[in-house]
């Protein structure tokens, strides 16, 4: 049953209202971020806030057009759209303009457009189309492979444009695949891998391995053998560790012993359930050995595989500045010892120089940015400094204050009240979309809904996490709020296609 004439029939007004609120918040905060006495009219087209207003206008027109189209249009044209966008991604590699080190822009006159922004909804359409095919089963390896290809292709093409941030967004699809039947263990495994990665970088591989062994002995011993054997093993291993720690005692030991025990316990229970008692003995040991290898490889990956700026980002995030200073001081003491060879001395000097360079990078680059970002947000206090009263963002202490770091302006001028409202708005939007997705009759719409929520969520986590020091500095925009036409339009298209699909849900036969 189709309703002609009223394009707003059955649309979800809650979602649209949140969308409009976020867009409005974005616009006035872009105004605040780049405000200057010379151009005080918020409609001044020569300034970013004036331009953003234009982009918003276009976005609303796009939204209307989408609502006017048939939902059927998107299901039918999912693959062609995907094809066209993938082609443009290849094209941009060949003829695109380079901005900030990334070859991701088409430039026509003064007008620039970023195809990678539109790759998101293209990938979403294609994935939805694929997963809604009747003969599909997520348990099949072929299905998994095919899904990975649909997601992986744009990711790889964007990575080739040297735009790491936009590439990482495709990791968000793990939530969609999980909902559609991908093993939960993969989700859990991913989260565990990240946690172990971070812990290893903070505490060093040796400590984590030792902790893991302790945890393993406890869990495995209690499950398989008896208490006595467990205690004996613990005592022997403890003695060995004691000898080791006589050389380097760490004050954090207790924290990661507890942490690692918990992870291993969870891991073990999963393995046990999966294998249902079949040869758990050997499998357990094998998994354990692999885990240890992973831990040890992290150090190698971090120091040899990652690039310098990536290392810095992670080091900054982990707050390792103090550690670096400490290391430099320690090396200095060694260097000034009287009884070392000239060769060794030179070696130490080089080490110090290298570490000093990193420290400078840390302080001037990402470290400085994060610090300024925290200062801007933190100085907002409970109720903020007031509209246009922010100093940190307006006086350029915060970088990219209208795009990637727009959240700093909100934090500084509106305080905790403002940021908390924003948290509520976003979380409400994500949950609302999931709720809407779950009420869809067609798999296509559901997959599409989950994809929208996941992508928005990923942007939200990385962007805000970055400004408050909980995620590494990865330059991706805050949905609907950050300055920029391409991202606003792409998010708008993404969202409004879903709103359109949702408004027609009753037309779809089960």
């Amino acid at each position: 049953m189709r309703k002609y004439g009223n394009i707003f029939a059955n649309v979800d007004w809650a979602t649209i209202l949140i969308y409009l609120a976020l867009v409005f918040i974005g616009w006035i905060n872009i105004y605040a971020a780049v405000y200057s006495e010379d151009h005080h009219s918020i409609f001044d087209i020569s300034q970013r806030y004036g331009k953003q207003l234009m982009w918003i206008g276009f976005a609303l027109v796009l939204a209307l057009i989408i609502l006017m189209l048939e939902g059927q249009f998107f299901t039918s044209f999912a693959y062609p759209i995907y094809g066209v966008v993938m082609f443009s991604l290849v094209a941009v590699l060949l003829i695109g303009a380079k901005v900030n080190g990334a070859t991701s822009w088409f430039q026509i006159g003064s007008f620039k457009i970023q195809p990678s922004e539109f790759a998101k909804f293209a990938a979403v359409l294609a994935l939805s189309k694929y997963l809604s095919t009747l003969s599909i089963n997520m348990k099949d390896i072929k299905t998994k492979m095919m899904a990975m290809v649909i997601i992986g292709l744009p990711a790889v093409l964007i990575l080739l444009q040297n735009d790491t941030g936009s590439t990482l967004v495709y990791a968000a699809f793990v939530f969609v695949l999980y909902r559609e039947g991908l093993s939960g263990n993969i989700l859990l495994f991913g989260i565990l891998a990240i946690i172990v990665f971070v812990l290893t970088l903070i505490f060093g591989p040796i400590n984590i391995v030792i902790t893991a062994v302790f945890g393993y002995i406890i869990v495995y011993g209690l499950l398989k053998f008896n208490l006595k054997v467990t205690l004996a093993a613990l005592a022997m291993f403890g003695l060995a560790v004691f000898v080791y720690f006589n050389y380097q005692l760490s004050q954090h030991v207790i924290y990661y012993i507890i942490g690692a025990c918990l992870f291993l316990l969870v891991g073990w229970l999963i393995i046990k359930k999966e294998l249902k008692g079949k040869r758990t003995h050997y499998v357990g040991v094998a998994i354990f050995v692999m885990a240890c290898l992973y831990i040890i490889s992290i150090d190698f990956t971090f120091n040899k595989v990652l690039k310098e700026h990536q290392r810095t980002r992670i080091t900054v995030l982990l707050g390792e500045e103090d550690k670096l200073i400490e290391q430099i001081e320690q090396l200095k003491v060694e260097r000034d010892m009287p009884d070392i060879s000239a060769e060794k001395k030179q070696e130490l000097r080089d080490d110090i120089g290298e570490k000093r360079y990193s420290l400078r990078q840390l302080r001037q680059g990402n470290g400085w940015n994060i610090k300024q970002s925290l200062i801007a947000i933190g100085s907002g206090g409970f109720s903020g400094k007031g509209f246009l009263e922010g100093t940190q963002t307006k006086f350029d202490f915060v970088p990219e204050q209208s795009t990637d770091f727009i959240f700093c302006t909100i934090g500084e001028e509106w305080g905790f009240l403002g940021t908390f409202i924003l948290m509520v708005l976003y979380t409400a939007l994500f949950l609302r979309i999931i709720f809407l997705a779950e009420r869809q009759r067609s798999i296509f719409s559901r997959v599409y809904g989950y994809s929208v929520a996941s992508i928005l969520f990923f942007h939200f986590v990385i962007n805000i996490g970055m400004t408050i020091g909980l995620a590494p500095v990865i330059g991706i925009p805050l949905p609907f709020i950050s300055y920029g036409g391409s991202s606003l339009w792409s998010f708008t298209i993404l969202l409004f296609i879903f709103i359109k699909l949702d408004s027609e849900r009753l037309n779809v036969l089960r």
Partner: protein
Amino acid sequence: MNNLSNRKFIVGLIFLVIGVIFSIRLFTIQVVNDDYKNDSDQNVLREIVQYPARGLVYDREGELLVYNEAAYDLMVIPKQVDTLDTLAFCKLLEIEKVEFVTKFNKAKAYSTYKPSTLVKEISSISYASIQEQLYKYPGFYVQTRTLRRYPRNSAAHILGYIGEVNQSTIEKKPYYKSGDYIGKSGLEYSYEELLRGQRGVKRVLVDVHNREKGSYKDGTNDTMAVRGTTINTTLDIVLQEYGERLMANKKGSIVAIEPQTGEILALVSAPNYNPNMLVGRAVRKNYPILSTDSLNPLFNRALMAQYPPGSIFKTVQALIGLEDGVISENSGFPCIKSLVNCHNHPSAQNVAQSVKMSCNPYYYSVFKRILQQRRAKSIFKDSEIGLGIWNKQVLKFGFGQRLPTDLPAIKRGTVPGIDFYNRWYGEGRWAFSTIYSLSIGQGEVEVIPLQMANLSAIIANKGYYYVPHLIKNVENSDTIPSIFMKKNSVGIKKKHFDPIVEGMFGVVYEPGGTARRARINDSIVVCGKTGTAQNPHGADHSVFIAFAPKDNPKIAIAVYVENAGFGGAWAAPIASLMMEQYLIDSIGTNNLAKEKRVLEANLMNVEFKE
């Protein structure tokens, strides 16, 4: 399918948990933690100190004694310094590269984001050329300060000097900050709080490139610098300079006071130095030179040199004797040289004659009568009681105590009392015969030149004095410290001063008087008393106190010339010239020879007697 449907809760939970984690984190950094607020202020707020001009100092006639001259300090904020062409910059600043690097590192060690002074007191000429180029060197700026200047090149000991505050002062007085200037001596020290004015602070907002973006809160919290208060002193700079000229190539001091008010007209200490030597950067070069000079020009003899007063002290003894009633103005004592040595003169028939002739045995007898009044059976005890009473009376003259004048670092001198001799000889082991030297101002009594001038003023006033002081009035205020307005009586009846004044008249005008050289002219009557103070270090000191005119005195003076011998020889003519200069404003032709003799005399290297 149902299984998978439950997964919506897992996904929803993850979304919700992240929202909660972010909210908690935001609450922590925005509401709980205050550090970021301070950091934010530190980022954008720059305090620009507005240094006030220090107060001016004038003499009693309105002559300018101290003013300010602009000086420029080059400041640096190390954090903002970009890649720097050190060599070119050093050339611009006219300093050595090594010096620059040391200073820059020191500034960096102090703070990377707070300003430090890199080069102090750039001259206005170098400033002009530096200012033109400075835009090329981010992180550097020039701060204007003021330097003290002394147009008259004299009165260094009185005016004092200023210097940077030291750490202990900063800790004691929170007003001061590192790099501030503070009065270190003289009037600059005494009237520091008036002269310094009030520092102002301007708060401006700056952006990340340290460019000024406007005033903070529209300048409502800014304070203006209040310039220092102008001070008018009692000093007569013409007289002061004349005194300094007269004392050239001599060691000693001159103190001249207006008796009716206690206003110090001149306070000369020789040798002295040019006050402009201790200004600004020159201090570093000149201070060591001055402080290691064997003649010790930094030493203010007028306040810090404690001398035996010699015969001028006889006036005090006579006054105490008269007040005690142990002598009358007509008491006569024979000049018996076996008691104490004396020069040849007829015996004094009364107090006036004793002063005129400065008879030593006469005062031996007077002092004996003062001390031994048969108040106790034991002569030891009798002397002790006598000395106690005498000591109290002498202190009333301002001797043996720090006169609370408005210059720092003043000595008290010594008026020995019972405790003093008990410590020295033991209790009951001394009597008049042990301490009779006091009678003629020798022995253990010590005074400073200011106290001598004060004695002269007491005699001129016939019985009272005002604490000698240098402050005449203060801008925007009708009062000076009350201690300088208080009339201090010495507790001796006015009539007892008449024979003393007569004697002092005789010293100058009568046959047998010891200071004929103190005469000025026929119209101005001078009264004076010579002294020739023995001292263990060398030739006798030449001492003279005087006042003039005899009736209604306008100036009281004390002159002390070290190792210059007889009081009438050098101290008397110097005092006379000073009084003439002050009272007539010039030296009469009859006295030009006297003036020439004094100006040309070099008494610096008088041979020490064995």
